[in-house]
């Protein structure tokens, strides 16, 4: 195969961000887009994530992103032509401390003011939403019925297939080794399969975003944490209809449409060594959480455990901007564990900015210079 070496846009990374950005650029008519992926499509953080989608956030920016993304997900199958596994069973947020419940209610008022219909529910109502829930030690719950989860693999492949139909090229096993620049403008990339020249290069490298930024001479404060997760064998539906989540309890549990249950938690911090190992402590700790919250899961078997990288920023909100230091170099990274759910909207917004249009949600606040200026937008609601 002869590779096309000159493109309008080169996107680094074929996770949800890279695929969504490439699709949205091509949809607007700029078809000569190349996506470079060092492994296979959806092999990084997207394919390892907990799959949740929610609008229950603590900052205005995340609420706007969350709601806009839910609206996208609700129409995604129609737009992309592939089932993305959307399930809207809501997010049932569990608070175990009074101060935490107060903060959830404060976030709820913010969400309500932005058109997100989150409400406080009693324990009795929580047990109607999630039959079999055992949370006598909780002090309160909030619920938003349009939250839920989707299939990260199918969603990413749906974007890739739709982008391909518009002429976007995807190159797997192609690792970027250097960013080419002349006089403060990006010129392309060097890879293990030769050079690709383009006036626009997008860093959508997920857990490796800070390494790619460094190649461009751009300093970002991102770091990658390992988070663990497990999945059970499939069981009958209805064991956990909503996504159960707690920020102080430090867990999330959901049931996939095929019946298997997914759960993640953080028993002992998050190593930052880029490793993707798994631990016994997690397996034991997560299993305790499962049987305590949902006693009827006792007899369900764990099928697999794995881990993935959260690309973190100091305020747990993403970087979505063009670099000031290197013109034509764009960044979409630092999603701090919620990149999958924001992918449909962040990809559209960055595509608008790349094409010189005004993003439909202002993203100026998501520039990485906010960290230097001390203008952090700290998001409290992260597991």
């Amino acid at each position: 195969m002869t590779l096309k070496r000159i493109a309008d846009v080169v996107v680094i990374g074929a996770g949800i961000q890279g695929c969504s950005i490439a699709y949205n650029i091509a949809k607007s008519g700029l078809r000569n887009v190349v996506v470079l992926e060092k492994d296979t499509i959806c092999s990084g953080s997207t394919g390892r994530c907990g799959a949740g989608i929610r609008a229950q956030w603590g900052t205005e920016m995340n609420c706007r992103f969350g709601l806009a993304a839910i609206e996208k997900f609700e129409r995604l199958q129609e737009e992309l032509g592939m089932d993305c596994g959307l399930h809207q069973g809501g997010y049932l947020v569990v608070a175990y401390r009074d101060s935490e419940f107060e903060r959830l209610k404060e976030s709820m008022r913010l969400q309500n003011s932005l058109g997100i219909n989150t409400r406080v529910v009693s324990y009795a109502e929580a047990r109607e939403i999630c039959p079999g829930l055992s949370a006598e030690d909780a002090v309160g719950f909030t619920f938003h019925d349009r939250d839920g989860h989707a299939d990260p693999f199918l969603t990413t492949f749906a974007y890739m297939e739709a982008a391909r139909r518009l002429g976007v090229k995807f190159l797997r096993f192609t690792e970027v080794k250097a960013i080419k620049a002349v006089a403060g403008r990006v010129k392309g990339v060097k890879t293990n399969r030769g050079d690709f020249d383009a006036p626009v290069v997008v860093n959508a490298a997920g857990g490796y975003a800070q390494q790619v930024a460094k190649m461009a001479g751009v300093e970002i404060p991102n770091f990658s944490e390992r988070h663990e997760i497990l999945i059970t064998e499939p069981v009958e539906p209805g064991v956990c209809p909503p996504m159960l989540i707690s920020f102080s309890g430090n867990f999330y549990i959901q049931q996939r449409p095929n019946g298997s249950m997914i759960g993640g938690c953080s028993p002992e911090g998050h190593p930052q060594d880029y490793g993707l190992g798994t631990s016994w402590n997690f397996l034991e700790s997560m299993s305790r959480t499962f049987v305590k919250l949902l006693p009827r899961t006792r007899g369900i078997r764990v099928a697999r455990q794995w881990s993935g990288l959260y690309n973190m920023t100091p305020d747990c909100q993403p970087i979505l901007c063009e670099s000031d230091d290197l013109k034509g170099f764009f960044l979409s990274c630092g999603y701090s564990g919620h990149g999958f759910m924001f992918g449909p909207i962040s990809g559209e917004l960055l595509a608008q900015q790349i094409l010189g249009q005004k993003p439909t949600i202002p993203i100026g606040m998501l520039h990485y210079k906010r960290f230097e200026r001390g203008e952090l937008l700290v998001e409290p609601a992260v597991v």
Partner: protein
Amino acid sequence: MAEKDEEIIICRCEEVTLGEIREWINKGYETFDELKRVLRVGMGPCQGRGCREIILRELSAKTGRPVSEIHPGTFRPPSKPVKLSLLAEIGDE
């Protein structure tokens, strides 16, 4: 005969047929991991003990590369399914 072959269930955990596997290989999903992500082969309780060899042979037939050179995907712990109650109570003993 060929049509019958296409209907054979290769991944019994997720009920994926030979026809579906061939269809996605032909669409360019030429690694075990990508087939796993799009069809869930190897993601069930047996983690591909039944289907992996057959799928690797199909990938070999399509790509012309010997099975020994095709990445077989990742086996993850636990090596066989274990009850949540058992894992939760181990620390109590």
